[in-house]
């Protein structure tokens, strides 16, 4: 074979990879907090708000779900300075990923809210629960239970999708890999290592989501209304 | 010469012994009703006869085709054995006619015209000639079950198995299905039917088999079995039905 695998030069720069992984966590962590916040506001706005608000949020959702994250990123990073808004690569990346996640999570959370029938809320009130208690026990937990697979799947996609930020040299794992590749010329080895780190992070998070699910929903696994519903949930996620 | 010969079959689900040495001989044109408590293994026996479940010991012979613990030529056997399920199981994406012609066409290689002629014939027998273009969700439960019977009949089986085919039906719809089955019996079809309709078993079946704990506990000509049950288990079982 013309080429021998050699991981040594990459391993020598491993600290850079770990730093990159850490930055990926920071970047996607910030985006996730912001994105979910957008999603909550969006979902509540769409279900409870006036018609014009529903329309406006719907337009935002469709615009961001029907264009690539990479183009959103370019538009924010390269395009916004044109209207006088200059952002650092990292800030642009966080905003792009957050807006993207916001669009998807709006729809996921809305599906959860819509899955709770009005009669359930009325039943809760009739039992003498306070409004807050109704929201806590009758709306949020059961709704979350229904959308939990889609939501956690979306968070995984967001974590992985943040690798796109390397296109504008934001400091994260893929960019760190690209930098190492350009100094060591060990392309395949570098990106294999990067892949392993992403896989490790993803599996760790899946495990954490599973644990949280266990704590949140105690006894049973989330109910599965039907496989078909599951499938359309799966196809509701993306970047 | 028996139409169906079941010899000492045993069936386990994991460690659970569900059929414990069941033997049955069913003659040509004989109608046999199988009764027994829930969980006594009635459905499992029917499913074994049709090869839907593997058996761990014994053998089953239909029209010269034999299956045993090692399996056997299941497809040839199934061509001779029709099965009708409690939940109809029509194919919802096909019309009534397509449901009925599918197996003759793809399994037996019958041409389209001939398959449709067969289909129209069997649909007439179950009284649904005019429904051939409908889909299953446009039919009542009783109609669906009669289509399922027609679908099975179209393969011209030597033996037909019925597993509680009226249990999922509203009471007012069971009559039409039972009538169809009675007509089949009168026409000389060999039938094994698991049923909770004691009256029907008594009236239509030549013989009734009472299953208990995975065994054939007691059997005999229907009238005799219902009038003079020998074992306390059977007496207990039919007592509430007699009134």
């Amino acid at each position, binding site marked *: *074979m*013309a080429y021998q695998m050699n991981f040594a030069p990459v391993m020598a720069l491993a600290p850079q990879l770990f730093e990159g992984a850490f930055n990926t966590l920071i970047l996607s962590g910030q985006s996730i907090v912001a994105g979910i916040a957008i999603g909550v506001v969006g979902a509540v706005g769409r279900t409870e708000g006036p018609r014009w608000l529903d329309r406006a949020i719907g337009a935002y959702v*469709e*615009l961001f*779900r*029907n*264009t*690539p*994250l*990479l*183009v959103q990123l*370019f*538009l924010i990073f*390269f*395009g916004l300075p044109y209207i006088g808004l200059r952002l650092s690569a990292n800030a642009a990346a966080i905003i792009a990923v957050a807006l993207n996640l916001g669009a998807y999570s709006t729809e996921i959370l809305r599906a959860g809210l819509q899955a709770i029938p009005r009669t359930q809320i009325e039943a809760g009130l009739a039992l003498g629960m306070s409004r807050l208690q109704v929201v806590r026990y009758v709306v949020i937990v059961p709704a979350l239970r229904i959308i939990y697979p889609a939501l956690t799947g979306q968070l*995984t996609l967001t974590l*992985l*999708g943040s*690798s*796109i930020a*390397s296109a504008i040299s934001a400091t994260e794992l*893929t960019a760190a*890999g690209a930098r190492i590749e350009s100094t060591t010329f060990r*392309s*395949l080895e570098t*990106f*294999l290592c990067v*892949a392993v780190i*992403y*896989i490790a992070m*993803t*599996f760790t998070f899946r495990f954490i989501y599973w644990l949280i699910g266990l704590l949140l929903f105690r006894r049973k696994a989330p109910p599965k209304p*039907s496989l*078909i519903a599951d*499938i*359309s949930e*799966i*196809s509701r996620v993306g970047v | 010469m028996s139409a169906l010969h079941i010899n000492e079959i045993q069936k386990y689900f994991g460690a659970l012994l569900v059929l414990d040495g069941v033997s049955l001989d069913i003659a040509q044109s004989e109608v046999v009703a199988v009764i027994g408590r829930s969980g006594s293994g009635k459905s499992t026996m029917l499913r074994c006869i*049709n090869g*839907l479940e593997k058996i761990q010991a014994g053998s089953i012979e239909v029209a010269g085709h034999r299956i045993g613990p090692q399996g056997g030529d299941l*497809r040839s056997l*199934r*061509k001779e*054995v029709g*099965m009708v*399920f409690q939940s109809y*199981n029509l*194919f*919802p*994406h096909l019309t009534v006619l397509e449901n009925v012609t*599918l*197996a003759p066409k*793809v*399994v037996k290689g019958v041409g389209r015209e001939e398959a449709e002629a067969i289909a129209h014939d069997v649909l007439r027998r179950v009284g649904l000639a005019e429904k051939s273009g409908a889909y*299953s*969700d446009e039919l009542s439960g009783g109609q669906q079950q009669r289509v*399922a019977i027609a*679908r*099975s009949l179209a*393969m011209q089986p030597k033996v037909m198995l019925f597993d509680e085919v009226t249990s999922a039906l509203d009471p007012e719809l069971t009559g039409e299905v039972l009538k169809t089955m009675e007509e089949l019996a009168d026409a000389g079809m060999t039938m094994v039917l698991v049923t909770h309709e004691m009256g029907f078993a008594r009236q239509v079946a030549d013989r009734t088999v009472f299953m208990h704990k995975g065994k054939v506990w007691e059997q005999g000509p229907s009238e005799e079995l219902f009038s003079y049950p020998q074992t306390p288990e059977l007496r207990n079982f039919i007592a509430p039905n007699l009134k």
Partner: protein
Amino acid sequence: MIRSFGWESVEFLIRGAGWTLLLSFMTFVIGGCFALIFALLRTLGPKPVRLAIAGFIQLVQATPLLIIVFLSFYGLSFVGLHFPPMVGAGLSLAVYTTVFLGDIWRGCIEAIPRQQWEAADALALTRMQQLRYVILPQAFKISLGPTVGFMVQIVKNTSVVALIGFVELTRAGQLLNNMTFQPFHVFLTVAAIYFAICYPMSFLSERLKGNRHVRPAH
């Protein structure tokens, strides 16, 4: 050479969009073929095959598409194969599509009740006939909505191969930006073209999901 953003630029982008569509189509066809095989093997294959496929799917689904693109780009040259970017791009997108679509389609096959298999089995249909005449036609109808929905993802995913130099819509936008220095106009137009391609598919997908009747409309 284009110097400022105008009609000529839009034409340039639309040519890029042509490549996006072609690449998406190829990805869907190739990825779809493997996805079908994956879905079938994962529901019906022998246990070791099922496990192997499930493991592969888990790994790919835990890796960013961009990294898969890089890996197949550099991996191909590692084994001594030097292909134009089109092939590396197509390959990685196809792998990604196989894995996700395979999962969606497996779900559709598994959504068909077991009794449908049994009824076909009792009618003496072979396994292949059961699939062909009973299971797949029903699974196909359920899968339409999610599949069209995933096609939107495929179109958007193709933008990633801009980063290995394949000139599709996004890369065309980058090039145009380097010529005109009008990023706002350029990327807004790029986004608009993507939207024009994707939105009708998203709309259709939702429509198809709503209509879950297994039997044909008539």
